């Protein structure tokens, strides 16, 4: 009999230096799993404690595009030279070209890169699995409503509902619940 699943996957694993991490959704928290292959460590961010999510641009997309583009350009020139002045394209030149082209294309398909941080009362922590704007938007669409629901008691009731003379509720200076900006990641090259 299959065991009930406590966590649902939000992102696939993203590899770092000797580790890979992934993001999972729990009943009332986010779970950041960092694995070395031999062991896993878990960090939990409860929805009620999340103060903000910070999304910033990252130049990894441009760097990877430039590096693979330049490599493809020179490999193409080499192939052209071989066709024009040699005895045709050597199969050896295809050996680095194919993986380089795959990386180039894969980077284009995944779209622009970003860095995401989660802000709590005591720390600001990066979320390495959220490295692409498209994936970030998809994950935010799932978790932002959950965080807002968990913090619903912190949102003050409308002014008309507050009894006259009654003390303001806890967190009465809270602004309206936020929404994800549609501009997030706009202008993406491939999104």
């Amino acid at each position, binding site marked *: 009999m299959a065991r009930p699943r406590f966590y649902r996957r939000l992102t696939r694993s993203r590899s770092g230096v000797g580790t890979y991490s992934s993001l999972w959704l729990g009943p009332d928290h986010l779970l950041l799993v960092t694995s070395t292959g031999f062991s896993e460590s*878990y960090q939990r961010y409860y929805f009620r404690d999340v103060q903000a999510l910070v999304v910033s641009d*990252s130049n990894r997309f441009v760097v990877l595009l430039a590096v693979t583009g330049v490599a493809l350009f020179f490999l193409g020139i080499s192939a052209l030279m071989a066709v024009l002045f040699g005895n045709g394209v050597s199969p050896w030149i295809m050996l680095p070209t194919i993986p380089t082209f795959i990386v180039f294309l894969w980077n284009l398909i995944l779209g622009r890169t970003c860095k995401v941080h989660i*802000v709590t009362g005591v720390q600001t922590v990066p979320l390495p699995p959220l490295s692409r704007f498209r994936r970030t938007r998809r994950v935010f669409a799932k978790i932002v409503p959950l965080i807002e629901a968990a913090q*619903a008691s912190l949102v003050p009731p409308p002014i008309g509902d507050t009894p006259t003379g009654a003390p303001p509720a*806890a967190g009465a200076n809270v*602004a309206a619940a936020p929404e994800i*900006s549609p501009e997030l990641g706009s202008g993406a090259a491939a999104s």
Partner: protein
Amino acid sequence: MPLASNCPSCHRTLPRDSWLNERQVHCRNCDADIEFVPFPALHANRSVVRSEAATLGEDATCFFHATNRAAAVCNGCGRLLCSVCAVDFAGQCLCPTCIANRPTSRPDNVSSRMLWDGAALMIATLPIIVWPFTIVTAPTAIGLAIYGWNKPCSLVRGSRVRLVLAMILGAAQLVGWVAFLTTVLRATPAVRH
């Protein structure tokens, strides 16, 4: 109000005039566009927890602080706690001892786990590149897989597929070694006295 004083990309101070609006900022140092998605907890009033001193002789006092008045009961051990010792943890009011000794059978209490399946599979697969080592690593992988069979596995991947795979690979390598040694011994001419 700016949500953060430092840029999360370059960690340099964000001047106030960098903020385009309440949610967007452009860092001039690293030329990064930063977007904030704030939540109500950011602006919520934080109450400062202070314990009250026990004044009368009949006041119930905290188990850990004899001079503090009890304000809560631990959901784990039932001890009386003052406001300082009562910690709101995963929806429960617990004392520091219960938090330290919390059972790791619950998924939301686990902070790290050894992956016996990952270790067994890695030991079974990696030495294939330098195959002579497999005479040692194959039984090790099988032993690790057997040892880790009843150990708690990954919190997010609950299957034993890797353990089974490590056992199969280790057994295959051992069978290969037996076949290899048998062939070598048969090919060697027998020494006759």
